């Protein structure tokens, strides 16, 4: 009797053994991980109640869609990312809580997101541009990147269509404006004092034009113009400000002005990709278990050993040994 030849099969076995041992004994490796610091500010003004998200069978209000998008994003962020939450109405953002690590506080964070509600709004007005500027300030303050969920519906309309000046440095705070809403103008649900829905906004319920401040240049040409009594002309303002759609051009303009990115709320995957592309990354060294790589190698070797080799070595090589 002699010892069996130390052939390829034996080598495969030994290498698999070494790999498995490595997987079992290898210490965790400090790997670089990119995380994000985010403060998410959600528009909770009246127009966000418009139900033009979701699908035909299950319409969803814009606010609900924003909540869902944010919640799904929170679930997909790298674990040690931090997320804070704020709301916007009137002309400013109000912080609900400062950024906290998202995984360790997951149910608190998602619980807070889920209860975002238009009833929290303290004023009916919706000065998107000013609110965005205040949210940017908030982001700068917290050293976090901004996610601003809004439909871009300014109420009252901007005076003369002029966007208020942004006095910060464009791009000093990075972030995304996330547009929420449909392309078609839809009616905005109206609620009474106790929060019951009582129909939709009608043309005379909202300001159709902003007639505060100075009249636009060339206002003299308007019918019924009078310098003191009717500087905006005598005709009543008409328009469809009582209907709402996603004002993408306005939001793109704001994004350009402030150096933020713009992304329309779509699938949660797309939002996460936009976050990856736009937001600042903070690198952390995270002890990571890497045993899975040698273990996978060992598994492949065993699969070759038991699966592939026998297939190919049906040849009668071992049979001819007795000659």
């Amino acid at each position, binding site marked *: *009797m*002699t*010892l*069996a*030849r130390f052939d390829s*099969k*034996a080598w495969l*076995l*030994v290498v*698999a*053994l070494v790999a*498995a*041992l490595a*997987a*079992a*004994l290898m210490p965790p490796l400090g790997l670089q991980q990119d995380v994000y610091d985010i403060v998410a500010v959600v528009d909770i003004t009246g127009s966000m109640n418009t139900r033009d998200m979701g699908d035909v069978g299950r319409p969803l209000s814009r606010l609900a869609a924003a909540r869902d998008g944010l919640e799904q994003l929170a679930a997909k962020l790298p674990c040690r990312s931090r997320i*804070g939450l704020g*709301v916007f109405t009137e002309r400013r953002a*109000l*912080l*609900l*809580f*400062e*950024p*906290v*690590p998202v995984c*360790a*506080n997951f*149910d*608190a*964070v998602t*619980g*807070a997101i889920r*209860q975002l*509600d238009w*009833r*929290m*709004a*303290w*004023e009916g007005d919706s000065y998107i541009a000013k609110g965005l500027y205040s949210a940017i300030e*908030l982001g700068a*303050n917290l050293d976090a990147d901004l996610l601003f969920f809004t439909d871009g519906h300014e109420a009252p309309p901007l005076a003369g269509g002029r966007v208020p000046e942004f006095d910060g440095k464009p791009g000093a705070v990075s972030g995304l404006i996330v547009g929420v809403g449909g392309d078609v103008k839809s009616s905005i649900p109206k609620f009474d004092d106790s929060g019951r829905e009582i129909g939709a906004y009608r043309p005379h319920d909202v300001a159709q034009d902003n007639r505060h401040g100075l009249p636009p240049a060339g206002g003299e040409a308007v019918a019924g113009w009078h310098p003191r009594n009717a500087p905006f002309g005598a005709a009543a303002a008409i328009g469809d400000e009582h209907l709402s759609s996603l004002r993408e051009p306005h939001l793109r303009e704001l994004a350009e002005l402030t150096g933020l990115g713009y992304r329309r709320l779509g699938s949660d995957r797309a939002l996460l990709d936009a976050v990856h592309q736009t937001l600042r990354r903070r690198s952390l060294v995270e002890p990571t*278990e890497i*045993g*899975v790589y040698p*273990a*996978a190698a*060992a*598994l492949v070797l*065993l*699969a070759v*050993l*038991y*699966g592939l080799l*026998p297939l190919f070595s049906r040849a009668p090589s*071992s*049979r001819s*040994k*007795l*000659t």
Partner: protein
Amino acid sequence: MALALSTPAVLWLAPLALLPLIVRLHAPQPYPSLAWLGGDPLSTALEVGLRLAGALAILALLLGIGGLHLAGQTTRQIGNGAHIVLVIDRSSSMDDSFAGSRPTAEQASKSAEARRFLRSFVSNGEHDMFGVAIFSTAPLQALPLTSHREAVLAAVDAIDRPGLSETDIARGIAMALSMHDDDPSAASRAIVLVSDGAGVIDRRVQEKLRAAFRKRPINLYWVFLRTANTRGIFEPPGAGERDVPQVAPERHLHRFFESLKIPYRAFEAERPDSIGDAVAEIARLERHPIAYVERTPAKNLSRLAYAIAALALALLVAARLAEVRITAERVP
């Protein structure tokens, strides 16, 4: 005790583990006649054992790669504490100091002081659950009742940012009550109201609050941050002043709370330190037996699985090394 996989999809590869049961690893050796060799239990056991070792190695590697772990558990324990909703005033007057002026280097704003003491209150309440509501012109629920301390502290930290204009205490309290409604546990409940002013509460709203308080036992604490030269909550109005809510809303809110017939304490803080005293007193009072959930983190078993795979492979290698080849000249 529940075993779980992080990536259950690896189980699709589990049939690989059947391969060693079908395929023989050691080379078959020709032998002139086996007829005279009788059954040999030891050989059979060895044969079966080696095949099983192969299957075990593959299975263990698969489970390790799939992230085999002992799922985290939650166990219910009994401790001391309560479920507390902090209702915090964020009207713009909270941004002023106790002297009623803009905060200076020596005198921080009322909201900053409140934040400091509430932080220590939250950090010390080991088994408490906290929710945070803020109110001003409208009530806002900042955080539902949660035991995640870090999130509560983050919500408390957010209070010393510029506030909104008014103070609508009634709706703030209604919000806190509804937050308690959302929490089904049988814990002892409390509302801690921190404000520097009060408003007149409408008679109808008073009735609604009264009804809401009657639904469940709840303790109410009011930490009133009294600005210099303003009315206190305990002082009767001066001579010649009418004792009506419009003149002294704080005093009348206090009387309304007293009329609720619930455990209620009011603290008047005129200096930052007295906020600390009030909060410490509340912490001392709110120590009731409470069932809380303790989480044990998940335990990763991947390494154990790899070790088992290595052991099985070591067995196979050993068997391979011990294998002998029967050569022609040695055949008996």
